[in-house]
């Protein structure tokens, strides 16, 4: 089913009025939710994903713990009314399991799990609305949620989706574009520039892939700026709130931090 809507018109505008490399508007909300240790709601245009992080905490099943690091558990739930067509997906739906596995493998090398042996980190993803770029939104929301939970990360992981229309690479695809174009999702750790995830769903010429991949890496840095801004704003808000009530606790901090030992040897 090819749509009659032009993906990219002669003036260089896409179906929703964006330019070729323009990203949709990003909104990051870190207000606390329920009893979660960390929470974030990230929107890319109309795609909205909420991630709640619990942990590190005592693992529910002792058999599944690892003696030297934390176990990562990712569960994804897609709301039935998130897409245009209502569909009730069970927890064992293949696409959902794939999504969860991608998120888990993206974050496993990034979270410093060796700091939390024998514990469990739960990442609960809820997809509130879908309009393309689902994996991208899930990864970005998970990064921010982990940061807000105070879990040690090597870096914030930033993800962007991209596609190719003819010979033109496009970034941050909407659902309409995803349906028509071969699309790729790239997740990077901006500081080192390393790539932690690349997925490609359809066929793409190797040259085209190189172009869109390079553009996506650049776009990842843009997203990183937004994420950094949101995390800093929240940290600063909390620090100010704490400062408003305290009378100065400098001495205690000094005494505490002089004892430096990561895992106390016994």
């Amino acid at each position, binding site marked *: 089913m090819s749509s009659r809507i032009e993906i990219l018109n002669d003036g260089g505008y896409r179906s929703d009025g964006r330019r070729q490399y323009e990203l949709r508007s990003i909104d990051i909300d870190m207000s606390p939710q329920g009893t979660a240790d960390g929470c974030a709601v990230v929107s890319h245009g109309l795609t909205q994903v909420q991630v709640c992080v619990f942990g590190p905490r005592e693992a529910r099943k002792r058999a599944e713990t690892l003696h030297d690091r934390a176990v990562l558990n990712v569960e994804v739930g897609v709301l039935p009314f998130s897409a245009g067509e209502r569909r009730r997906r069970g927890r064992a739906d293949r696409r959902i399991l794939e999504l969860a596995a991608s998120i888990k493998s993206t974050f496993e090398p990034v979270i410093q799990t060796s700091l939390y042996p*024998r*514990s469990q980190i739960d990442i609960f993803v809820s997809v509130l609305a879908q309009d393309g770029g689902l994996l991208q939104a899930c990864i970005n929301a998970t990064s921010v949620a982990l940061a807000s939970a105070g879990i040690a990360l090597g*870096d*914030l992981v930033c993800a962007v989706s991209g596609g190719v229309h003819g010979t033109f690479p496009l970034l941050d695809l909407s659902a309409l574009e995803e349906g028509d174009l071969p699309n790729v999702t790239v997740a990077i*750790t901006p*500081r080192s520039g390393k790539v932690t995830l690349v997925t490609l769903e359809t066929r793409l010429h190797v040259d085209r892939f190189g172009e869109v991949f390079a553009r996506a890496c650049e776009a990842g840095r843009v997203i990183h700026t937004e994420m*950094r801004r949101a995390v800093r704003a929240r940290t600063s808000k909390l620090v100010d*709130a704490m400062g*408003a009530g305290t009378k100065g*606790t400098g001495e205690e901090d000094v005494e505490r931090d002089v004892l430096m030992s990561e895992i106390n040897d016994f």
Partner: protein
Amino acid sequence: MVLDDEDFAEGTQKLTCPGEPITSSHAFMRGHGTYVDNEEVIASVAGTIERVNKLISVRAIRARYSPEVGDLVVGRITEVQPRRWKVDANSRQDAVLMLSSVNLPGGVQRRKLESDELQMRTFFEEGDLLVAEVQAFFADGVMSLHTRSLRYGKLRNGQLITVPPALIRRLKSHFITLPCGVDLILGLNGYIWVSKHLKQNEQEGEDAFDAEAVYSNRNDDIDDATRAAISRVSNIIRILGAHFVPLTDTLLLDAYEWAVEQEGGVKDLLNSDIGDALVSAVAARS
């Protein structure tokens, strides 16, 4: 963002987020919340940078409780295992309370008997709340608690309030008595126990260590005024927690006085306007 000595002036709070380089690893040693890569010290959590001499660390603004030896914690029993209990203390792993670390009825010098191991639930069972001190750590970082003091042990006559652990600072004493007849125990793990005041002389008395009393689940008679005071104090703590204000004894006293001056009901404190007014009033006084 590479920082050196001048940037760490007194009183400035430098913020960071994961993946941000802080300084060169040649000049500084790295502490909690950081790691070294490529000769740089890099932050791994979002929070404030703290520097002590040559040690750089980042304190996460909001994280699970990180225990240290000697800390006072309030915990809830989650499991009863052979010769020990597992205690939920809002930390990365459940803490452990060994049978040998609790006071056994009949005097503190009493030796452990076999029958004690079989009757562990007569001391603590699942769901019980207790106040204990961190004695030591096991090799994997699990904390070991002890209640070998008459001030520690099972909690009753009150209710539990939870706040983020970052708001509980290390104080000289975590047992606070408010003038309205309410006792507070500020666990460093963010669990706070608000209860009816227990007179000092009822606590002490090492010779007459009454198991019935210490491990009893029965509450004392509490009069209505004290109950109302307990509810009021609980609401105050919730407000301070929601506004992310660190808790100290003076702050709580000020807050309670203000709340009483308002002459409102206990449930008026649930109103967000009153809550905001409370926090500003208390901040103004300090």
